[in-house]
């Protein structure tokens, strides 16, 4: 083995050739100098330097501590004995050294193997340690889990125990109840048994009976009825009727409740739509407006739906529609509220941060404007108050006072002027009418006079008629009939003389066949004829011609014109 060779060569201090170091020689052989190295030794001692060599060898021997006799060079001859002794000692030395080397080598080997062994065992132990550490931690973990399990099991156990206790208490109470009941039943049973015994023993058996002095009438006074199948059917029918009426009342109340709730929902919806729609102008310009408008338009659509919904109240579709529309509106309202909230918070943020000067500036402008307006109004009011004060207090300047008075009275003057105008107009009308009236009265007077004359003449002729002189009267009759000749030629007379007609009307009023006293027409009649007051019975004022025509119609039927007075009053 090469390593001991190396070390050997180092210890001995002998320089060896490199070829030597690689060779695998045995220990013994290596100690022997091979022949190849002879050339090295031969260089040490030559013929010329024997004495030096001897001296050097003596030195070396001395330093080595050998007792060998010092090699003396007598006459230049080297005695073999000290050399041999020296050689022998060196050999001994060499052998000793070899032995020591051997021992050291073995020692070395042993140490090496020990080391190896120790290293191995170290590794092994390290591994073992690692392994045991891991095991330890695993065991710890396991222990912890087991602890946890123990705790949970403890809790389970506790709860189970509680439940067991509760169930036990329940069981005990039930048991006591059962016992109580069974005892009661047992007591009853024993009583029954006793009574049975008694009855079996007892000979006299009391029968059940009723003793009643006289049978009473039924509470509702009706006669009792036989039990027949018809009766049974009637009972069944009554029972079902009772049930049905109950269901009907319940259904009615539920329907009422339903309709009321629907109404409430509809109102709510309308309110929500109302809330959402008028917000349009007030809301600040924002893109959210579009959705609002959309909401409004949708809301308007919804109101149209309302009508439809109210018609089909019981329809499930309508019901769903209503609830869906309510939900929609509610969602819109919610989103709108959220938007408003966000806007408000945004505005609040803006005020704090000072960003977005636009809206703020607008606000400020508006505020300024409002303040200005307020100031103006205040000034105006103040001025008004001052003026009022001036008015109330006595004016210092007469002229201005007069002027002021004038100003105030101007309006009144205007009003008065207007009223005066109206008054004068009315006065004029009145004057006209009075003139007409007086004319008519004058005419009437004239007519009356003429009439009286006529009447007198007629009476005279009548009187004369009674005499045998008949023929002569006819023409005389015809004459005064000129006024009364309206009946024969009504139309022609009418066109030319409407007032005459009226006069004749008034005459005909009075022409009675009998010698009745002349009945003067009442003022109302006169006025009516003169068309100053509307006809009583008729709503509209018929034209004078129409009236007179009808009157003439009535007149022409027969000469008796008594009915004319009545006809004037009666509706045409």
């Amino acid at each position, binding site marked *: 083995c090469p390593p001991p060779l190396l070390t050997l060569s180092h210890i001995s201090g002998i320089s060896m050739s490199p070829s030597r170091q690689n060779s695998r020689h045995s220990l013994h052989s290596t100690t022997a100098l091979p022949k190849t190295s002879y050339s090295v030794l031969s260089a040490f001692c030559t013929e010329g330097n024997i004495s030096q060599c001897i001296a050097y060898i003596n030195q070396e021997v001395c330093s080595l501590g050998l007792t060998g006799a010092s090699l003396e060079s007598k006459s230049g001859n080297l005695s073999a004995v000290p050399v041999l002794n020296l050689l022998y000692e060196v050999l001994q030395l060499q052998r000793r050294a070899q032995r020591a080397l051997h021992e050291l080598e073995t020692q070395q080997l042993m140490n090496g193997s020990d080391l190896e062994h120790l290293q191995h065992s170290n590794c092994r132990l390290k591994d073992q340690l690692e392994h045991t550490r891991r095991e330890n931690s695993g065991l710890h973990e396991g222990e912890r889990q087991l602890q946890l399990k123990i705790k949970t099991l403890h809790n389970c156990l506790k709860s189970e125990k509680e439940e067991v206790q509760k169930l036990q208490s329940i069981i005990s109470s039930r048991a006591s109840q059962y016992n109580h009941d069974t005892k009661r039943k047992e007591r009853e049973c024993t009583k029954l048994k006793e009574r049975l015994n008694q009855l079996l023993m007892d000979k006299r058996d009391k029968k059940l009976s*009723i003793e009643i002095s006289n049978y*009473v009438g039924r509470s509702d006074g009706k006669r009792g009825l036989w039990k027949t199948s018809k009766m049974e059917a009637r009972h069944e029918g009554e029972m079902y009727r009772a049930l049905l009426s109950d269901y009907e009342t319940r259904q009615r109340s539920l329907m009422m409740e339903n309709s009321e709730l629907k109404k409430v929902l509809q109102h709510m919806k309308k309110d929500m739509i109302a809330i959402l729609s008028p917000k349009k102008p007030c809301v600040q310009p924002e893109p959210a407006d579009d959705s609002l408008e959309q909401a409004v338009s949708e809301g308007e659509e919804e109101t149209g739906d309302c009508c439809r919904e109210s018609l089909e109240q019981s329809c499930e579709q309508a019901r769903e529609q209503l609830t869906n529309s309510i939900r929609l509106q509610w969602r819109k309202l919610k989103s709108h509220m959220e938007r408003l909230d966000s806007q408000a918070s945004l505005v609040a943020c803006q005020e704090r941060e000072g960003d977005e000067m636009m809206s703020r500036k607008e606000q400020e402008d508006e505020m300024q404007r409002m303040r200005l307006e307020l100031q103006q109004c205040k000034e105006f009011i103040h001025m008004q108050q001052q003026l009022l004060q001036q008015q109330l207090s006595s004016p210092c300047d007469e002229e201005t006072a007069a002027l002021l008075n004038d100003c105030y009275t101007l309006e009144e003057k205007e009003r008065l002027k207007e009223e005066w105008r109206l008054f004068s107009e009315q006065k004029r009308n009145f004057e006209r009418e009075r003139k007409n009236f007086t004319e008519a009265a004058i005419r009437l007077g004239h007519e009356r006079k003429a009439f009286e004359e006529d009447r007198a003449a007629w009476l005279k002729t009548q009187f004369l008629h009674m005499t045998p002189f008949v023929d002569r009267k006819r023409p005389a009759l015809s004459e005064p009939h000129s006024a009364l000749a309206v009946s024969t030629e009504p139309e022609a007379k009418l066109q030319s003389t409407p007032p005459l007609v009226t006069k004749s009307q008034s005459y005909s009023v009075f022409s009675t066949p009998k010698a009745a006293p002349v009945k003067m027409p009442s003022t109302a009649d006169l006025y009516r004829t003169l068309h100053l007051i509307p006809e009583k019975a008729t709503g509209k004022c018929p034209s004078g011609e129409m009236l007179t025509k009808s009157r003439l119609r009535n007149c022409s039927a027969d000469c008796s014109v008594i009915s004319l007075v009545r006809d004037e009053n009666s509706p045409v």
Partner: protein
Amino acid sequence: MNFSEVFKQSNQLCKVSPDGKYLATCVQYRLVVRDFNSLQIVHLYTCLDPVMHMEWSSDSLFILCAMYKRGLVQVWSLEQPDWHCKIDEGSIGLVSSRWSPDGRHILNTTEFNLRVTVWSLCTKAVSYIKYPKACQKGVDFTADGRYMALAERRECKDYISVFVCDDWHLLRHFESETQDLAGLEWSPNCCVLAVWDNCLEYKILLYSLDGRLLSSYSAYEWSLGIKSVAWSPSSQFLAVGSYDEKVRILNHITWKKITEFEHPATIINTKAVVFKEVEKRPVVGSEDLSIHQLTVDNSLFSTQSKYEITQLPAQVPVIKPDPDRANPKIGISALAFSADNRFLATKNGSFQVQSLFWHCSGSSLVLLSKEHICLCYMEAEEEK
């Protein structure tokens, strides 16, 4: 407050006639009828045995006196004092006796609930109804007196029979889905019958007049269940009081619970007004205890009580009942709706209130305990 003289009575049998004209009291075996306004004795009847139960007929013309020991029922007429009627149940015994709503039939329940005998005062007809159930409330008449519901038990199953009171014709007979029927009650509109199970199971069933099951409601299971039930006068609500100290209100449209009221021991609801009875006993010094004082001053031993409003939160005294005893004194034992549907009065726990009922106008509530009577006036707000 004026009081009349004290009249004797036995078995707490003292009833005013339905028309309000007469007052009938029983003293042992005598039946005394007085005019209500003057309290003068109008009639005096003698029965064969001490009277255990006395009832006016609905038209105030007859009075029924039942003597359970002898199994006898005697009926007296107010119009004809010498008219008499005696019903003998024979050896079968008598447990309870009542009038029918028309006032012309008497229903006798025999001993051991073997049968219900229907005696008619108009005809000679006798009807028998077998297997009636002995429970808290096994018979109920509709408000208009047309139908009667009767609980029956055959072969360990509950049945309900509906009879027409006119001629006692069996209209419907159907099985009830209860484990152990405890009671039944018609709704005031006579169309729905509420049937509830006994306290071991919380179950209330609603049947329609023709026997169909409309709905069933159960709030919880295993713990003790229903203790009391009341219909609202408009038939819209059904109040169910249970042993867990809660009242649950069901609505008549879906028959589901719409609300529930709790009765906590500490009242913290700010809208609640708590009245507490405060007794004032006059303090008697030992020097004052002379006989003269005692005879003159009657109020010395009388305790006056007043109701005061206590501050919230108020603590209600709670007595924990013995869990080993049956029918524990916890839970809602009494329920009453006012006539105008506005108020509901409930009694929870072991308070010594024997009965509570409303005045017909709905403005006041009467509480009866063993020794006291208490009137509560509700101040109704004016409706705008």
